[in-house]
């Protein structure tokens, strides 16, 4: 009785399930399958070996550097912001609204802003550096400085989201815990490391999961700010896709690699930290 009852309601979910599967699982499977094909249609591994020739390793390492850099910067600053947001002080609302704004700004617009700040000639970062009496920096000259610009732009755009997630976690902690710790003589640092951090860990895992995955998929920001120089894994895929109907098979191969990295990352985070929270 209960079973058949459930089946009737599952019918309401089916359209959404079919839609999502048709537009994500099916294309992803297609991508994996085609990564082993030549344009003529025979099976091959040559797409993968060609990728090594076109600098897949460097693109992967650069993507990893950007992801880790952005994640650390975001988590650290978002924690700071969230801790200010939960404090009741005059001007709290203004501060919260101001810090949320970048999240509402289109990715392409924010990429454009940062390309104006960090352009070698006529950039605002350089005019600030020159005002201070230092020599201007050519931001796009080396791959490490280009990647730093992407990290900074990404942190500006996405820290608000992480801050909101951490804020919801912080406001769930009961004040009595802190009062008890205070009464027992725990200082501010002790309270932070023994109460705030451990209690925030599950929600930090969620933030890490959500942001880590999107960090690895970062596409619009590097494309607008630094183009293909140096390429990240996503811009490399896009370049192959655009070049010709032959190189699109390289982009299938690179896509497959990206897909497996993301799946690996997601399962590690879910397994290590997020599983408990997700099951709740």
């Amino acid at each position, binding site marked *: 009785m209960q079973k058949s009852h*459930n089946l009737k*309601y*599952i*019918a*309401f*979910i089916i*359209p*959404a*399930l079919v839609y*999502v599967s048709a*537009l*994500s*699982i099916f*294309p*992803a499977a297609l*991508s994996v399958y085609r990564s082993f094909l030549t344009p003529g249609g025979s099976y091959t591994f040559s797409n993968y070996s060609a990728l090594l020739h076109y600098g897949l390793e460097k693109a992967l390492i650069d993507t990893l550097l950007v992801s880790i850099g952005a994640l650390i910067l975001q988590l650290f600053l978002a924690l*700071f912001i969230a801790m*200010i947001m939960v*404090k*009741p*002080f005059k001007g709290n609302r203004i*501060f*919260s*609204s*101001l*810090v949320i*704004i*970048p999240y*509402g*700004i*289109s*990715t392409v*617009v924010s990429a*454009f*802003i940062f390309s*104006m700040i960090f*352009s070698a000639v*006529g950039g605002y970062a*350089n*005019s600030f550096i*020159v005002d201070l009496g230092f020599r201007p920096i050519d931001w796009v000259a080396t791959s490490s400085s280009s990647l730093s610009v992407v990290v900074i732009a990404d942190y500006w755009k996405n820290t608000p989201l992480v801050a*909101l997630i951490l804020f*919801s976690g912080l406001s769930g902690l009961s004040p009595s815990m802190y009062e008890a710790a205070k009464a027992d003589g725990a200082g501010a640092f002790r309270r932070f490391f023994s109460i705030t951090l451990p209690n925030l860990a599950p929600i930090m895992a969620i933030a890490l999961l959500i942001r880590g*995955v999107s960090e690895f*998929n970062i*596409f*619009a920001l590097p494309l*607008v700010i630094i*183009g293909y120089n140096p390429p990240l894994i*996503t811009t490399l*895929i896009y370049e192959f*896709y655009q070049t010709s109907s032959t190189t*699109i098979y390289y982009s*299938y191969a690179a*896509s497959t690699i*990206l*897909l497996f990295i*993301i799946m690996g990352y*997601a399962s590690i985070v879910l397994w290590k930290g997020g599983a408990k929270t997700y099951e*709740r």
Partner: protein
Amino acid sequence: MNVSSSWKSNLPLYIGAVILSIIFFYPLYVLILITFVPAPLNNLSPYPPQFPPGFTFYNIIQAYSALNLTGPVVRSFYVAMMVGGLSLALGIPAAYGLNRIGVRMANKFIIFFFLINMMPGIVVAIPISVEFLKLGLSNIYGVALAQELVVLPLSIFIILGGFRALPKDLENQARVDGANLPTTMYRILIPMNRSAILVAFLISWMTSWDEFTYAVIISPVRSTFPVQLYNYVTRAVSFEASAFALTFTIPVIIVAVVLQKYLKSQSFTGGLSS
């Protein structure tokens, strides 16, 4: 909460808040500078000044008269409306079903939806674009269909949170009184859940307005506003582009700030609470 939080004891807090505010506001300030300062005093000088040396509307006027951006904005608007509409058309039934099948099973479906959501956009977009080309969908309709993928899980989650907050007997009572399921949906369940539905629609709308990856891959020509802006930026007509970007950023900022008020009290977590 803390009554004794006087100005002095909060000093480090204020210093932190002010520094962070400056860091977060500065890029926006730069956008305003580029838009309203005459270009020769600004980006065309090697080291543009941090404070406005002059003021002009020329850049904005130039942007509206010289660049063909109204078309892309209208298309973006249509796409965002379609994505928001699809979110409701697929999301309301799905959320209704999930609300009825029991929490444990529903959570399994939700986890599935969110795992699907983690699929890298570019990995999915390229095969979709190849298939859509065959189907004649390499246009804004195809973009809307693909963007829906990004917003649907969150929409279902938010609407489900709203349904779970309604009293359980509501639907049964309506059915006992003789209303059939469609009537119950239209007359009772949807109106009573309208704030969650509105939030789901607005979030879908804003996500679509911002979305770039699917748009540029599926429909690189005659596409949405972000794609057109990208084309102008790479062709280095930046003052006009920035003037345009600013005028279309202001409404989005307002929507975001309004939405943030809703979100705090709204059922973002309601979908998981049992």
